[in-house]
């Protein structure tokens, strides 16, 4: 009982802080707008005296309250023979604490707002209108009290829901999973479908066909987005070799991307050098340049273990950006203004620089890179990389020349980025230093990590989720990078193998969790 209350209190505090934080960064208002789109109630008549924006705010806060209640209650299995009472109590306590924190902050902010204090000077999102919307038409103390009561009720309801949905006190997710295992997966036709390779290939085939036909029906804007996702798949697959297979954390991956892009731009554009080379000639040059840079950078640094590499590559990425931006080199790189009028590809005199054709070109490159990655991963080299990632000392004892292998991984990863960069510059018909800021590296790392290190389908899924999804939810643009950061931490805490883990990698991480302690003891460190 005491334990349960302590857990509920802790859950309540955590959720309270989250609620307050979401309010302070202005997410409550954004979420209300999104809800308005989803529920389509923008012009609905007021309910309980609330116009739709306020109503949606209440709904959003209520949803968080339900969630808080559900987590607050689901800890203890059965208390004193009355599961419902315990669940309601646990959820209610969590909701009460959450409501207390939220209500206090709301009352304080509301009062300050009414006195005419310009809080948005210090907390950017607390504009008077936003605060007024959060007050729901009550005077500030009343709004605080409302949040307290409302969240307590929502929490209790959430607690009750966990017991109501899951039969016999089980959580809903477990109940569904058990049902599927007991009732569906034993059916003979399900079994044969699961085993048959024909089904697998049919699914892949349909997916591939769908993707190939997509650019014909998508408009210009979506083709641009699809192209961007494709380029991120390229980058992700390249970094996947470096991070996912060889286990080297490269935070300056954007440097190789930039080298590919600048190679394309400087060699094909009329300014600043007026070389005007052919697109198809420059593609291999860009790839080669990136790979050579990878080797040059890697040679001194790769003898170290991971952590140094992360910082040095990070610094290198910034160096490339600073150099391309600097006035000293502007005669060579175009300086801060960048390089305009980068050439597009032509195909036997046929200019394929239209949106649709370029998307297909990107698809082709992605397929090529997937093929190469797949062959590499299952070759002697790929196995050497994975062995090295798991234990460098042992792999050296097995006769792997780790420095060569690391350099190889680094160079191949860089080459893919060079290809991606060349395509990127050519598609945008422009290249400038601001295309290559740190965020690109971070995005690519996030794509690989979220998707699943070492897994090709994972990288594709990661690029779709991280680059494609935000395009659909443009309202969330402001929060995207912050969510990336949080996502990296959360993925590491809960699912370090990624969304679609590679089978080998998953096995290793599961095993690691169990063996880590023994290994630590054995090493005496």
């Amino acid at each position, binding site marked *: 009982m005491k334990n349960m209350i302590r857990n509920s209190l802790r859950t309540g505090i955590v959720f309270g802080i989250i609620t307050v934080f979401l309010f302070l960064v202005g997410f409550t208002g954004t979420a209300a707008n999104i809800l308005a789109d989803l529920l389509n109630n923008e012009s609905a008549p007021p309910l309980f005296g609330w116009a739709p924006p306020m109503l949606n705010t209440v709904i959003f806060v209520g949803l968080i309250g339900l969630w808080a209640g559900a987590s607050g209650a689901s800890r203890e299995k059965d208390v004193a023979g009355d599961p419902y009472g315990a669940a309601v109590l646990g959820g209610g306590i969590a909701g009460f604490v959450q409501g207390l924190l939220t209500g206090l902050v709301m009352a304080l902010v509301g009062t300050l707002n009414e006195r005419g204090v310009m809080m948005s000077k210090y907390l950017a999102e607390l504009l008077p209108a936003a605060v007024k919307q959060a007050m729901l038409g009550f005077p500030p103390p009343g709004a605080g009290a409302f949040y307290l009561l409302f969240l307590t009720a929502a929490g209790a309801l959430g607690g009750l829901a966990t017991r109501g949905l899951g039969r016999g006190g089980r959580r809903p997710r477990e109940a569904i999973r058990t049902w599927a295992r007991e009732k569906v997966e034993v059916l003979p036709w399900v079994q044969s479908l699961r085993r048959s390779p024909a089904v697998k290939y049919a699914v892949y085939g349909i997916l591939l066909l769908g993707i190939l036909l997509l650019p014909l029906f998508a408009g210009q804007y979506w083709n641009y987005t699809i192209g961007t996702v494709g380029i991120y798949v390229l980058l992700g697959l390249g970094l996947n070799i470096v991070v996912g297979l060889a286990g080297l954390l490269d935070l300056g991956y954007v440097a190789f991307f930039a080298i590919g892009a600048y190679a394309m731009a400087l060699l094909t554009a009329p300014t600043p050098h007026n070389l005007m080379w052919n697109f198809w000639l420059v593609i291999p040059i860009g790839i080669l340049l990136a790979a050579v840079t990878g080797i040059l950078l890697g040679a001194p640094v790769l003898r170290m273990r991971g952590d140094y590499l992360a910082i040095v590559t990070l610094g290198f990425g910034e160096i490339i950006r*600073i150099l391309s931006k600097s006035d000293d080199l502007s005669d060579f790189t175009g300086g801060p203004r960048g390089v305009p009028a980068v050439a597009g590809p032509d195909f036997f005199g046929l200019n394929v620089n239209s949106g649709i054709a370029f998307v297909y070109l990107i698809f082709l490159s992605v397929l090529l890179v997937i093929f190469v990655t797949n062959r590499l991963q299952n070759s002697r080299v790929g196995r050497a990389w994975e062995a090295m990632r798991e234990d460098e000392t042992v792999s050296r004892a097995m006769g792997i020349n780790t420095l060569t292998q690391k350099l190889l991984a680094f160079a191949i990863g860089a080459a893919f980025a060079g290809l991606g960069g060349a395509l990127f510059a050519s598609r945008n018909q422009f290249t400038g230093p601001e295309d290559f800021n740190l965020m690109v590296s971070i995005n690519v790392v996030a794509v690989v990590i979220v998707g699943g290190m070492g897994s090709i389908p994972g990288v594709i899924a990661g690029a779709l989720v991280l680059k494609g999804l935000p395009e659909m939810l443009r309202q969330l643009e402001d929060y995207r990078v912050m969510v990336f950061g949080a996502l*990296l931490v959360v993925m*590491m805490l809960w699912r370090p193998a990624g969304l679609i883990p590679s089978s080998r990698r998953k096995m290793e991480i599961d095993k690691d969790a169990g063996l880590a302690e023994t290994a630590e003891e054995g090493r005496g460190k």
Partner: protein
Amino acid sequence: MPIQKEPARRVKPYQIIQAVTGIGCAGYLLYRLYTVLIGSPTYGTETWARFMIAGLILGSVYALIAIGYTLVYGILRMINFAHGDIMMIGAFGGYFTLEAAKSIPAGGSNFSDAYPFAAVLAAFLAGVAIAALSGYFLEKIAYRPLRGAPRLVPLISAIGASIFLENAAQLLFGAQRRDYANPAVLTRGEGWTLVINGAKVILPYTGALTVILSLLLMVALYMLVMRTRLGRAMRAVSENKQVAALMGIDVDGVISQTFIISGALAGAAGVMWGLHLGLVYHFVGFIPGIKAFTAAVLGGIGSVPGAMLGGLFLGLVESLGPAVLGISFQLKDVIAFGILVLVLIFRPTGIVGEALTEEKV
């Protein structure tokens, strides 16, 4: 007993590259030094003095941040990537305190101008407290559950935490750069005037405060690590966690305290940064964080005196470097990263580095 002949040592190609690069770099540096100082002096003594002063101040801030990297690395063998952002949080803590002090009327003007000592002290206390708290929770949320996981996992988590903190700060406080409201006596740019070569060189008050305070903090930290019970526990944990635990040391507690201490130092550095340089925004911790890491590597990561020396050295190099090499000041960040790469090539153990075992490298 016959003397065994030593087998002929094969020179590895890597060593040749190392030697060539080393001679090349050293030669170019000497040539530049000759050009700048004797050949065709571009700057007079007073300009060099200004560079030195700026470098020393910057260096002492780097040193404080670098100590945090070194402490955490020594104990957990991981780079606390979000350390620079802890400094940013500290800088914001000081900023809000000073803003509050400016707005409270006292003694004719406002609290900040009437009692500058108390206001600055409060700013430091607030910055240090909030940064220490952030360090504690950072470790508890993002690193502790990952103990024993493969090395890449906590590092990625740290990067995620860093991105999260930067962007959360941007959303909370807005993207604009803010000016620190210094008390009147500590106005930025004012200071004692020295006359060198007939030209005025200003030794800023804020700079003096920064250097003195960070030296005091460094001495205090050194005493803490070498003389106190907690320091001994920290050293024991960094030597061997299992054995330390067997000796009755609460390993998790020591790690938490390490994060609190390194956070506090970063917070102090953040407030100094704000007082001396003025501008504070959500990204302010990023570049100093990387520079301080460079400083920690330069001095030998894991070594506290090394971090101090490395920080001061890096600050000086950064402010003197562009002048010596004759390149534009836009490129001063390139120098710092270049040094990092060179250190890793020639002496990965740093200036005062202990012999690094395989495990630590």
